[in-house]
């Protein structure tokens, strides 16, 4: 199908690949599997098929250029389809045209150009440009002039600024075929604006705040649009170990501009960055994002573990989360797939057991597939995802083979001699229905099996760059006993994932002293006085409080000095800056300004403010209380 589409794509032939009874996710897998570039459409309830079908699927319908049914058949014969497509596409009138862009030209005519071909003989007087300035039903007609080859041109007189010009093209051949461009003109029309552009390009960007140092360098993406046209887009950045640099961003086929950094990224490094763009207008308008200051990206160590609990029964994910934390491994627990799983060195996916399971779709699986093949570590447990459900490329990476849909017969689960689980034994009391029986394919290792009947329930694999553990039982369903505990099993898994030897939390910035007790989550900021005179001892201290019991890592902290509306951000006191801090239970001070003697000759001022606050990771919501302190000085 794809080959035929490719061969006929430039001959005014369109292929619609329609999944009868298939949903969007199934179509996404079909598109991926067969690398189809034509539209792959979901006819979820077979409503469209029922309008055509009088045979079995695959089923083919060929419509001519006026939407009339010309051919139907069941099965698939490439030669037959090619013959039919050739038959119905050859006599068509075809018009190729790149729509006119907006223009600042108000003094000379606008030339509209197109290529027109036909299976018959074109009728020169019928080749026309229709235009107006109101988009209505009355058009000025211009007969197109031959410009050599298949190219024809027509002119529209110059218009004043503020005018929108609407137009379409038309052609006929002596075989009775005719064509408008756009095809459904005049219902749809091409248009362009005549204007004086005074605005710079509009830049949009989803800020990057954290990036793993071990997966450096990040790619920065921005969308840039302009009324007349985008000229150059530049990303300017200041790495804390490199001088300020700028790089011209590259426009991709997806219409997005991208850039990467040339500086290395070590844990704790920060990058301040912003975008500048200039348009192609006469004035050369410019714009900047953000309008002032910069975005801040911090290079971090990978966060150790993320538990993604997708099934309705949360009887395993919370157990894994608490057990990992008991082992000193910082973990986070979510019930939806986050935007950036790549921040984590390991991902633990819980899919549950039927009938309370989550069936992973292809689109979801691709997120994890990319994470895994980029060097991630994945544990995934599910009673039905290895045999019963569709196994997408992500599942295949676990090298779990020869699976079969089992029954509810998991009872005693044992570790395997010579593996990470050697000597472990459990009773299984978790969800237990249609449990997939699994085996290790070449390159993988069986690490847990059901004793009787004997079948595998967990398989581990170490690839060159990634590691997987696939399990058909829920870890939360294992019973601790004097023989073995879930903590022991998780210790084995975590060690396999290199989590036990790694530092459990990222290095904080800056290093903090041992915290003391406090009562309210948030930040207070203080100075020795509200008014300073020459010779007074001055300093500024922020006190970060986390009353517990939870602890947090990599929390954005902002400390701002407000001098009559001009803002200076700690620690650089530049136009924009921030730090990321860890929050153990208790209070920790941060020296914002070290002690110094207030100098002479500074005049007088008042109503100068400090503000200090923590936010969520996306810097959209305050995290805890905000602190402030007003001060001034006099002589």
């Amino acid at each position: 199908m794809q080959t035929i589409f490719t061969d006929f794509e430039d001959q005014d032939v369109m292929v619609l690949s329609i999944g009868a009874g298939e949903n969007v996710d199934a179509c996404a897998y079909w598109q991926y599997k067969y690398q189809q570039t034509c539209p792959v459409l979901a006819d979820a309830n077979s409503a469209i098929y029922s309008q055509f079908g009088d045979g079995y699927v695959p089923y083919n319908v060929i419509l001519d250029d006026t939407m009339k049914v010309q051919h139907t058949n069941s099965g698939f014969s490439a030669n037959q389809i090619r013959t039919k497509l050739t038959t119905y596409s050859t006599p068509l009138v075809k018009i190729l045209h790149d729509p006119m862009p907006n223009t600042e030209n108000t003094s000379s005519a606008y030339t509209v150009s197109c290529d027109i071909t036909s299976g018959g003989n074109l009728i020169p007087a019928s080749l026309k440009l229709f235009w107006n300035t109101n988009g209505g039903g009355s058009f000025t007609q211009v007969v197109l002039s031959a410009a050599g080859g298949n190219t024809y041109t027509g002119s529209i007189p110059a218009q004043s600024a503020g005018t929108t010009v609407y137009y379409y093209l038309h052609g006929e051949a002596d075989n009775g075929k005719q064509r408008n461009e756009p095809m459904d003109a005049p219902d749809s029309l091409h248009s362009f604006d005549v204007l004086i552009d005074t605005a710079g390009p509009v830049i949009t960007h989803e800020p990057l705040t954290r990036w793993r140092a071990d997966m450096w360098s990040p790619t920065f993406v921005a969308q840039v649009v302009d009324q007349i046209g985008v000229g150059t887009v530049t990303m300017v950045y200041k790495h804390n170990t490199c001088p300020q640099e700028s790089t011209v961003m590259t426009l991709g086929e997806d219409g997005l501009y991208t850039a990467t950094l040339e500086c290395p990224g070590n844990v704790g490094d920060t990058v301040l960055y912003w975008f500048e763009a200039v348009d192609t207008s006469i004035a050369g308008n410019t714009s900047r994002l953000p309008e002032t200051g910069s975005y801040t990206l911090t290079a971090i160590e990978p966060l150790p573990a993320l538990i993604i609990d997708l099934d309705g029964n949360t009887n395993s994910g919370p157990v894994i989360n608490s057990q990992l934390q008991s082992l000193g491994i910082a973990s986070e627990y979510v019930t939806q797939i986050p935007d950036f799983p790549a921040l984590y060195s390991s991902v633990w996916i819980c899919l549950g057991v039927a009938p309370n399971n989550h069936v992973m779709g292809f689109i979801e699986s691709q997120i994890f597939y990319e994470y895994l093949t980029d060097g991630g570590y994945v544990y995934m447990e599910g009673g039905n995802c290895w045999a019963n459900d569709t196994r997408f490329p992500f599942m295949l990476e676990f090298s779990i083979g020869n699976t079969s849909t089992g029954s509810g017969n998991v009872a005693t689960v044992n570790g395997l001699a010579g593996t990470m689980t050697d000597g472990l034994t459990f009773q299984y009391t978790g969800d237990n229905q249609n449990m997939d029986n699994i085996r290790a394919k070449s390159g993988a290792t069986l690490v847990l099996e059901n004793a009787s009947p004997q079948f595998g329930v967990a398989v581990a694999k170490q690839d060159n760059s990634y590691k997987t553990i696939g399990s058909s039982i829920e870890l939360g369903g294992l019973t601790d006993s004097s023989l073995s505990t879930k903590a022991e099993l998780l210790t084995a898994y975590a060690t396999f994932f290199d989590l036990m030897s790694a530092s459990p939390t990222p290095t904080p910035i800056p290093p903090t002293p041992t915290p003391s007790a406090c009562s309210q989550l948030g930040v207070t900021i203080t100075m020795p006085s509200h008014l300073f005179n020459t010779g007074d001892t001055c300093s500024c201290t922020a006190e970060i409080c986390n009353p517990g019991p939870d602890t947090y890592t990599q929390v954005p902290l902002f400390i701002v000095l407000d001098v009559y509306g001009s803002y200076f951000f700690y620690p650089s006191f530049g136009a924009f800056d921030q730090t990321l801090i860890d929050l153990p239970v208790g209070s920790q001070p941060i020296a914002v300004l070290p002690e110094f003697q207030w100098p002479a000759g500074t005049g007088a001022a008042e109503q100068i403010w400090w503000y200090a606050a923590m936010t969520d990771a996306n810097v959209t919501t305050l995290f805890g209380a905000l602190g402030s302190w007003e001060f001034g000085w006099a002589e």
Partner: protein
Amino acid sequence: MKRLLLGAFLAMMLTSSAALGVYQLGDTVADFTLNDHLGNPVSLYDFYGKVIWIALWTST
């Protein structure tokens, strides 16, 4: 087993729908809109003026 049942159900559904086919050779097909593999709506008449091959498939 679930897959077999699903396949049988779909086959039954497709077979029964055979009697419901409404378009004959020469009929003009009315516009319809379906979501593509990214969830974006696509209409048949977006391609009016082209020769269109509607290739119906099923994964079961």
